[in-house]
């Protein structure tokens, strides 16, 4: 998959250069995670998408919530700060700092490069670039794991290695050639598929998806018919039933529990859909596929 980079081209080139140099010379030593466990102070940064900030030079002190407490950190080069959606941080811009911030939106990734000499409370400007078409699968998956990790303050090297991987994945997106970018419809369709794979256990529907992506519900149907050769609901059921198959095989849970954790509030309906797709009932599937396995 390829994506297009927009924003003033020199800006995007500068950001690619900075990120490339950074990754060649620097290893991530430490990742700070913010969360939303305290009330954000006035003018704190709170967004409905996750963000990653990466000081390149200098430092700025930053307040953030972590495990029910407000912490003040002073990240420098080699550190990264991951702020999941709805968590908060509050950077102080009074010192000299060059910082690269990644914004992981629904449809695109935005990058802001601030070079701030300090002195004023807010930097006067930033270089910005964005990658449209959201994510390729590696970027999306790494980000998903990092978001999971953020909830249980991980020890060990996983967080810093994943953060490095995420930066490499973003760099690859930024450098992919502009002219080979797939049609917008394909990119939107792929973004929706990834979203469904992440949210199938909640009450997603064609309407909630349309709302999330700011599309008309009919347009969602059309995308699936044209790009995926199936109906939206068939795709959603397929993702849910696949997960159910895995759970039936590996977890000792009741059908009702499995149905619920795959997004079906009605177990009878779940069984009907399962039978339609797999040609056997969930119970039959479990007994044939767990024979000899101790649950």
């Amino acid at each position, binding site marked *: 998959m390829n994506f297009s980079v927009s924003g003033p081209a020199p800006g995007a080139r500068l950001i690619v250069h900075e990120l490339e140099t950074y990754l060649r010379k620097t290893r991530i030593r430490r990742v700070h995670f913010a969360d939303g466990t305290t009330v954000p102070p006035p003018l704190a*940064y*709170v967004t409905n998408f996750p963000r990653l900030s990466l000081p390149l030079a200098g430092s700025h002190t930053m307040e953030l919530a972590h495990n029910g407490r407000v912490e003040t950190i002073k990240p420098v080069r080699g550190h990264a700060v991951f702020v999941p959606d709805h968590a908060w941080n509050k950077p102080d811009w009074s010192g000299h700092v060059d910082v690269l911030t990644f914004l992981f939106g629904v449809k695109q990734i935005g990058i802001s490069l601030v070079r701030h000499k300090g002195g004023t409370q807010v930097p006067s400007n930033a270089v910005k670039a*964005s990658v449209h078409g959201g994510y390729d699968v590696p970027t999306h998956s790494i980000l998903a794991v990092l978001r999971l990790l953020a909830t249980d303050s991980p020890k060990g090297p996983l967080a810093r290695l994943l953060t490095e991987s995420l930066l490499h994945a973003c760099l690859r997106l930024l450098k992919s050639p502009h002219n080979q970018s797939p049609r917008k419809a394909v990119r939107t369709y792929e973004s929706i598929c990834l979203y469904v794979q992440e949210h199938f256990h909640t009450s997603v529907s064609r309407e909630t998806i349309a709302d999330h992506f700011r599309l008309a519900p009919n347009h969602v149907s059309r995308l699936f018919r044209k790009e995926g050769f199936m109906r939206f609901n068939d795709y959603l059921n397929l993702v849910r039933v696949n997960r159910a198959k895995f759970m039936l095989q590996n977890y000792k849970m009741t059908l009702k529990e499995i149905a619920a954790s795959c997004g079906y509030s009605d177990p009878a309906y779940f069984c009907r859909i399962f039978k339609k797709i797999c040609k056997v009932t969930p119970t039959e599937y479990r007994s044939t596929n767990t024979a000899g396995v101790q649950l």
Partner: protein
Amino acid sequence: MKIVAVTACPTGIAHTYMAAARLEKVAKNFGHEIKVETQGAMGIENKLTESDIRQAQIAIFAVDIEVEGRERFNGVKVIQVPLQEALKSPENIFSKIQR
């Protein structure tokens, strides 16, 4: 009232998006219809079309930097406020409009 708005902050990281959300929410409480374009690090999102702008009675710029494509708003009444006002007291902006 039909309103269009643009939000933009220097870093384009968070306040742009937070201000847009505040304006949308408060406009609804005042019974206005609003569409907010964000000019942040993710590029221009929810872009205002020519007809959005033509139909609007007023445009709000909650910005701390230059608005991209300002010429689109020629002939529309524009009020410009510092971005922080949209975050701290968005109600004031709308009461100003009503007067």
